[in-house]
């Protein structure tokens, strides 16, 4: 019940925000440009095509009516038609979403599995060489341009050492599509060679994507653990003779992780934003690379569609993070 109420409350907040985002995108696409029809029809469009586009968009009508039309089209999943693929933008994006989610989740797993233990280590051995080393790494993680890191990794691990493939999601044929996630599909198929193939393609992009998020998690975990270590229950447990390892990895960690979990929404923002450039470098067929191709082709409807679509995905992910947080910490839902 508690959770249901939270979901309804957050949805009630999410929908107007998304509607606002759509209005902003509408404003960017229809009001800022001098001739939106020409822009939407593409650089190579003929005069007749532009005129056709103008009629189709109803650009002669009042802006508010156009906005209403835009909302109505959106509700039926119509984000316009891509000039380049000539398919509906919504279908294009939906077909490519699994690739992006697979990459993002892989990066998320790397982030959490490496970041939390490293953060604890940094806190336990505060001001030791390991803490200093990790600080250098986290400072670097937040400062390095992800596309540059991607190129360096490609140069070193793919071109020079040839440990990992240079780009793409898979070599050869993809596994039989069940979920669209190659890792899951390959496991379902029971084809270990293909699973290895998929995982090796996933490694470099996921690592690149994870790097800045990893830095964030290490910093937050370190701060959280340091704060928890000062609390009286830790002193009490020490006095009771509970083994230090048990205190740290069970009691302290549980109490410090809440602030880290809160940051997962922020992490998704970092990851989703990173996906646009990283998918481009690794030729990863997700929605980020799609947006980049759309930019190159001046495929205007696709760029605008991507913005709205990213807003929807981002909003839903944040909603799920909030719900997950409420499940972990009942106090949160009450607030």
């Amino acid at each position, binding site marked *: 019940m508690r959770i249901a109420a939270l979901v309804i409350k957050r949805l009630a907040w999410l929908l*107007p*925000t*998304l509607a*606002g*985002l759509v*209005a*902003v*995108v509408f404003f*960017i*696409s229809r009001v*800022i*440009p001098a001739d939106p029809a020409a*822009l939407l029809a593409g650089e190579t469009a003929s005069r007749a095509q532009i005129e056709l586009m103008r009629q189709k968009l109803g650009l002669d009508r009042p802006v508010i009516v156009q906005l209403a039309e835009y909302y109505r089209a959106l509700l039926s999943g119509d984000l316009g038609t891509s000039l380049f693929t000539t398919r509906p933008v919504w279908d294009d994006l939906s077909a490519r979403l699994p690739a992006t989610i697979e990459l993002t989740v892989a990066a998320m797993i790397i982030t959490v599995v490496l970041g939390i233990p490293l953060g604890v280590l940094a806190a336990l051995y505060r001001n030791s060489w390991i803490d200093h080393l990790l600080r250098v790494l*986290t*400072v*670097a993680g*937040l*400062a*390095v*341009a*992800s*596309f*540059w890191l991607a*190129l*360096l990794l*490609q*140069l070193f691990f793919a*071109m*020079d050492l040839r440990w990992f493939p240079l780009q793409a999601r898979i070599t050869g044929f993809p596994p039989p599509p069940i979920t669209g996630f190659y890792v899951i599909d390959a496991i379902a198929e029971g084809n270990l060679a293909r699973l290895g193939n998929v995982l090796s393609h996933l490694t470099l992009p996921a690592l690149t994507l994870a790097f800045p998020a990893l*830095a*964030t998690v290490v*910093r*937050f975990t370190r*701060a959280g653990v340091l704060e928890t270590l000062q609390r009286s229950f830790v002193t009490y447990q020490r006095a009771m003779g509970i083994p230090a390892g048990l205190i740290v990895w069970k009691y302290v960690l549980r109490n410090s992780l809440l602030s880290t979990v809160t*940051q997962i929404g*922020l992490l998704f*923002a*970092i990851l*989703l*934003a990173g996906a*646009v*450039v990283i998918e*481009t*470098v690794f030729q990863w067929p997700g929605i980020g690379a799609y*947006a*980049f191709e759309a*930019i*190159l082709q*001046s495929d*205007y409807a696709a*760029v*605008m569609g*991507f*913005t709205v679509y*990213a*807003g929807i995905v*981002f*909003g839903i992910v944040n909603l799920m993070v909030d719900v997950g947080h409420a499940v972990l910490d009942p106090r949160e839902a009450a607030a």
Partner: protein
Amino acid sequence: MKAARDLLRGLLRDPAAAAGLLIILLLVAVGILAPLIATHPEAVWDMNPRERLLPPSHVYLFGTDRMGADIYSRVLFGARITLTIALVAVGAALVIGVPIGLVSGWRQSWLGEALMRVSDIFLAVPQIVLAIAIAQTLGPSIENVILALSITYWPWFTRLVHAEVRSLKNETFIEAAIALGVPTWRIILGHVLPNVMSPIIVRTSIGMGFTILTASALGFLGLGAPPPAPEWGRMISESREFLPDAWWYALAPGLAIFLVVMGFNLLGDGLRDVLDPRIRRAGAGK
């Protein structure tokens, strides 16, 4: 003046913050002195096909690019672009975001509420996504990158100032000022604003680093300054065609971005420690 001196002394005591400050001063110096310290200032914009894609040497410190231009000189001139974009975009975001945060945080009003909801909309997608849409509409140029980044960054300042002002409002000295009948604008400018300056300064420094990263990503995606402008992100993007042979091509511009962003982040962390002793290196920058 004394406050500024204390701040500087505090920063210099922290080696990381001092390093950050040094990097930024260096960036500014490089931006100003680029024509003097560049080894081939004439070859930044010109084609020079015979000197194309040469590896680093004592003549071309970081090698040459596909046009035969000296990458070292281009990186130096690129500092001007980077600095301009970051300063103007973050400055504009400050000018838009801080007053909105002050107004909406001070008093519950429909206007303040509406402005906060608008800032929610801008935070509903990662900044770069909206910046891509705006830059794509306006066409590739430095001015449009600046515009796209300022339009999408102000909500961060609004959010920050809004929260700070709301908690300040309940402080005794503000209540006393209200009770004494001090005009609202004087309370806001004379008492509230100085007390929210610290978080604004910290956010500005970290925001500069973040904006430089986003701007370089826009450049990398082809939405920044059009060629042959020596924009760091675009230089890295150009290098991709020539890998792995021209391994040096992306090295210098990438290192430049890394150093500069790190400089602003380190300075931001240092400022946080000096200005706000309550939080010690807890939060990660964005």
